[in-house]
């Protein structure tokens, strides 16, 4: 019904290995992308940008990063909040220390700095695995937050230790600071997410991604067939932290505009991002995006529906919302333990064969 694949023949290996081998998917993807880039910005207000889209883009970026490490390379990490903090503080130091840099370079440089820190904290992964590695990355989380609290240099010795983003521009348009146009910040964050989701997709199906997956599936076998575990694991940590660092920079500079390490990047953030990729689907780019949307947007939806739609008291609505989201998560994981992306994959297979399932 939905899919009509009659007449679609693949004559090259390239066509067969395309990200969207079915033309219907390809069209749907490009239409959605064009809609997001060209149509949505015209109808944005501050609320939609700051409460709906920016949180989604930021957490989608972080989830992409963690999915590279955990979903593709099999290394469990609980240090996401700490690496986001590295990105945020790096962007703060760059913004205040090198005022002439534009925001795109700042974001990418912050990602690179986070990647360096990620490599250092990835070193234990060469010796320890699984839950033990999770504990080692937990140390990264606590150490990094403690460090940003301890040394005044990181927050320019302000009395309270808060950092706040000064105004920085790109092409003459304010990206950070208070005087931003919602469409500009939206496009900036969406652009980053689009480009780096693209990069991630092509990384994971290339040589590096295959070596990550080999390590994930069985590291001894991978080593025997010639995959270098040192390079693969550390490159996964570097790329993952690069993404998470950029997410932290976007979080601090573009979305929030101010941050305080204990409140903005606590261990809860690490758990939240881990839940995103588990619910969305480990080892799936689509899963990262869906998981991030699920965790960031559902609370807002329930809040609007219960408080403003039905006029419930705010505290009751908040309690109900926590119960509902917990219930939905359990429901989804019972229906499909491999996440929403796997659910979608099954549904798509059925749709392609429908109405003749045999």
């Amino acid at each position: 019904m939905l899919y009509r694949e009659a007449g679609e023949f693949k004559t090259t290996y390239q066509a067969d290995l395309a990200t969207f081998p079915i033309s219907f998917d390809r069209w749907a993807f490009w239409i959605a992308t064009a809609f997001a880039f060209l149509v949505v910005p015209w109808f944005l207000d501050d609320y939609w940008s700051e409460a709906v889209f920016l949180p989604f883009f930021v957490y989608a970026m972080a989830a992409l990063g963690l999915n590279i490490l955990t979903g593709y390379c099999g290394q469990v990490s609980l240090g996401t909040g700490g690496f986001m903090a590295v990105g945020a503080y790096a962007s703060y130091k760059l913004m205040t220390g090198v005022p002439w840099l534009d925001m795109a370079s700042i974001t990418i440089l912050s990602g690179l700095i986070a990647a360096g820190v990620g490599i250092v904290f990835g070193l234990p992964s060469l010796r320890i695995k699984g839950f033990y590695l999770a504990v080692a990355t937990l140390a990264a989380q606590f150490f990094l937050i403690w460090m940003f609290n301890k040394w005044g240099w990181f927050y320019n010795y302000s009395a309270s230790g808060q950092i706040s983003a000064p105004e920085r521009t790109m092409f003459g348009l304010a990206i950070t600071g208070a005087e931003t146009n919602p469409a500009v910040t939206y496009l900036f964050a969406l652009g980053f997410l689009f480009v780096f989701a693209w990069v991630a997709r092509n990384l994971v199906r290339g040589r590096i991604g295959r070596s990550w997956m080999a390590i994930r599936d069985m590291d001894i076998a991978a080593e025997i067939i010639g995959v270098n575990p040192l390079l693969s694991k550390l490159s996964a940590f570097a790329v993952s932290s690069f993404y998470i660092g950029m997410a932290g920079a976007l979080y601090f500079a573009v979305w929030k505009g101010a941050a305080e390490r204990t409140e903005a990047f606590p261990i809860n953030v690490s758990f939240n991002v881990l839940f995103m990729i588990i619910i969305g689907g480990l080892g799936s780019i689509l899963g990262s995006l869906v998981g991030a949307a699920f965790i960031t947007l559902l609370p807002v939806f329930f809040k609007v529906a219960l408080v403003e739609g039905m006029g419930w008291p705010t505290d009751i609505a908040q309690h109900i919302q926590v119960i509902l989201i917990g219930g939905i998560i359990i429901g989804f994981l019972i229906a499909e333990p491999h996440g929403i992306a796997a659910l979608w994959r099954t549904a798509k297979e059925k749709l392609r064969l429908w109405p003749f399932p045999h």
Partner: protein
Amino acid sequence: MKLTRFAVAAAVALAVATPASADLVFPMLSYRTGPYAPNGIPFADGYHDYLTLINERDGGIGGEKIDIRECETAYNTDKGVECYESLKGEGALSFQPLSTGITYQLIPKVTADGIPLHSMGYGRTSAANGKMFPWVFNFPGTYWDAASIIIKYILQEEGGTLKGKKIALVYHNSAYGKEPIRTLQELSKKHGYELILLPVDHPGQEQKATWLQVRKERPSYVLLWGWGVMNQVAIKEAAAIRYPMDHFIGVWWSASENDTLPAGDEADGYKAITFHGVGEDFPFYADLKTYVYDKGLSAGDGSNKGYVLYNRGVVAAMWAVEAARTAQKLTGHAKITPSEMRDGYEALDVDEKRLDQLGFNNFTVAVKITCANHGGPGLGAIQQWNAKTKTWKIITPYMSADREVVDALIKEDSEAYAKENDITPRDCM
């Protein structure tokens, strides 16, 4: 089918969320859930009840009803920003987030959107400088005032000298808890005491190590800069090491019944600074009873009246209402805009006479705001806990801060902020 129903629900919810209101919109960023709910609930109830009183007794402000819009933040900045963005579009007149973290987030936003922000005794201290922060108000006193007043009180207790004494600060390791450090350091230079800094990490349930250090160092006084569960744990731990309670002084956010009751009899004698009265022995409570409680209009379960944080909610609402009234007087019309509300805050002058008219006799300090001074008078009194009667009692008159030290710090910090964010200070006559 389920999907369509969800979509319809979403569409309905959004349609309902947008209508423009004809009344004066007073948003309430409250937290009745989450780790700090025990403190958030009484404050929210007090704020809500006073606004209900104004609606019921006076028919609103200047004939315009107050439209109270509550939004749950759970003390979480993500939710706080969502609340701000959704309420901003509905004509919110001023914001009071009751969270230092959310306040920091909102300072640049309100400045760009032109909505006044009143962080009453919390938030960014240097926002007291109205030249750099035209949209932010933090009267009647700042953390730095509080620190300075507490030191002044200790000076009085010690007969005017602190040479060679040790004073410890047990603080929440966050923006909020770190605020007083600079002031206490400056004052230690001036008065010659030794400052011991003892950070406690969020949420503050584990403080054994901190108090072991207190026992080792034996400071003459311990100051407490905590919030939520950290306060009660600190008081219990202090009792456990038999620290003399009357040498243990908290800031106004470490000064509620929630903090002292769990420690039982051992909390007796604990002191804290405050800027408003405690209990129900004030004329406005009679009005609250007639127009709110007896009509069954109390916010929440109505069990918090007379508590420190309930009274603080009331006083916060009172200043907001007076600011709106001042704005109406200035503009000559009842339907004010957020920017007129800001002018109202800036011209706010609630003196003793006005307080008596409102039924707030001896309840709080007189406040006069000017273009340059958004921090108010910076007055505070010391209150002491009586564990037998389970009440607080104010034991000193209202004292003023060491303006020389505090003003210099405010100037320095606000100028650093202005430089970092390219703000040119405005002129104040």
